């Protein structure tokens, strides 16, 4: 069965190593924080100027001067630090953030990502996404394998305006875990529980690279 959002978040959480500084995008990536293993220590960055995002506040703790990049009220963990936006993107651009997890509308088989604009329809802006994908060494995309209108989001080439080129390392969807092969193509690493290789093939428009034996995810 295809994973739900929580399932995707849980699987992504397994990718995370202790000691990492991590930027989580809005949506599914934000959920990942809830499923980190107990024994690892990571620091979450909010690109609007905080290292050390804590849980959402209790009602009495709510502070309008303390929000995350999704504009939600948050708390700070012990050992947090605050800074301005230039410093924050200096961290990102300078490669100090170990992992970026973000959503996407489309990913190409060479690791291009499109997630900021639908011409004529949606003009929200790219926010920090272009800086993140242009800078991070380790980028995981969290998304549905297929769009609501039934089209594959794993394509030979992106059809929507690009956010960044050759940057995605790994994709974790409701159906599969895949990595971008250095020669191009989506290398299938794991299947969602109960999902067949054929179902993944059908849902993938770009080149899918399949080894003999594809294990099921362990969630």
């Amino acid at each position, binding site marked *: 069965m295809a994973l739900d959002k929580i399932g995707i978040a849980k699987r992504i959480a397994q990718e995370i190593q202790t000691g990492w500084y991590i930027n989580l995008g809005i949506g599914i990536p934000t959920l990942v924080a809830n499923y980190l293993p107990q024994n690892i220590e990571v620091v979450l960055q*909010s*690109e*609007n*100027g*905080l290292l050390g995002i804590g*849980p*959402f*506040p*209790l*009602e009495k703790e*709510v*502070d*309008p*001067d*303390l*929000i*995350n*990049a*999704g*504009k*939600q*009220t*948050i708390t700070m963990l012990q050992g947090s630090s*605050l*800074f*301005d*936006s*230039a410093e*924050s*993107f*200096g961290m*990102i*651009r300078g490669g100090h953030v170990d992992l970026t997890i973000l959503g996407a509308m489309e990913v190409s088989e060479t690791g*291009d990502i499109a997630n900021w604009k639908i011409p*004529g329809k949606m*003009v*929200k*802006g*790219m*926010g*920090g*996404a*272009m*800086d993140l994908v*242009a*800078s991070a060494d380790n980028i995981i995309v969290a998304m549905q394998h297929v769009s609501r209108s039934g089209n594959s989001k794993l394509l030979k080439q992106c059809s929507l*305006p*690009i*956010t*960044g*080129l050759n940057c995605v390392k790994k994709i974790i969807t409701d159906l599969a875990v895949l990595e971008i092969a250095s020669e191009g193509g989506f290398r299938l690493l794991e299947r969602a529980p109960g999902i067949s290789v054929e179902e993944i093939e059908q849902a993938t428009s770009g080149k899918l690279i399949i080894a003999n034996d594809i294990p099921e995810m362990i969630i």
Partner: protein
Amino acid sequence: MINKVVENAGAAVRDIKDYSTLMLGGFGLCGIPENCITALLSTGVKNLTCISNNAGVDDFGIGLLLKTRQVVKMISSYVGENREFERQLLSGELQVELLPQGTLAERIRAGGAGIPAFFTPAGVGTEVGNGKEVRTIDGKEYLLESWLKADFSLIKAWKGDTAGNLIFKGTARNFNPMMATAGKVTIAEVEELVPSGTLDPNHIHTPGIYVQRIFQGTNYEKRIEQYTTR
């Protein structure tokens, strides 16, 4: 120390003229110059170019200046919270330049720090790179981006002193410190205005040299965009 205090928001923004370029601090509705925005609604100044990470919401922040059609151009990174903005943009009433958030922050810092241009990887291969110089350095491609400056920067701080030194609180700092450096005239509104010498020199985020006018703000609403509790 040099005294930068003006009476109130009205006095601070009085000489902002039509066709001025403004920078407004804040991320979402957090750390925005509420008092200055209200004062601009009163002066009715028009054809403003506003540089701000976001464009407020329909009925708060820069959204208020959009509603009154005082803004002719926005330079921002994310404007997804504002339907009036989207309407004006799609109808062609409003010019918009969208930039990667880090590029926006760095271009503003560059404007304040006398760096006319710099290379950044953000936007390479995207429409942000259209018409911009691309250069390969150490095997990676970068775009050349230029500095941004403003006629007036409108800054919101937590505490400030009469010499213009500022301290921000929490994530309300965001774009405010860079913008303070990049305005020909920088106007700071603060929640608490204290005498020069009250703030610890080691805790100051924005040195007074960048601030030309400062005043004690009033009636801060500090609206929360996404009230979230656990």
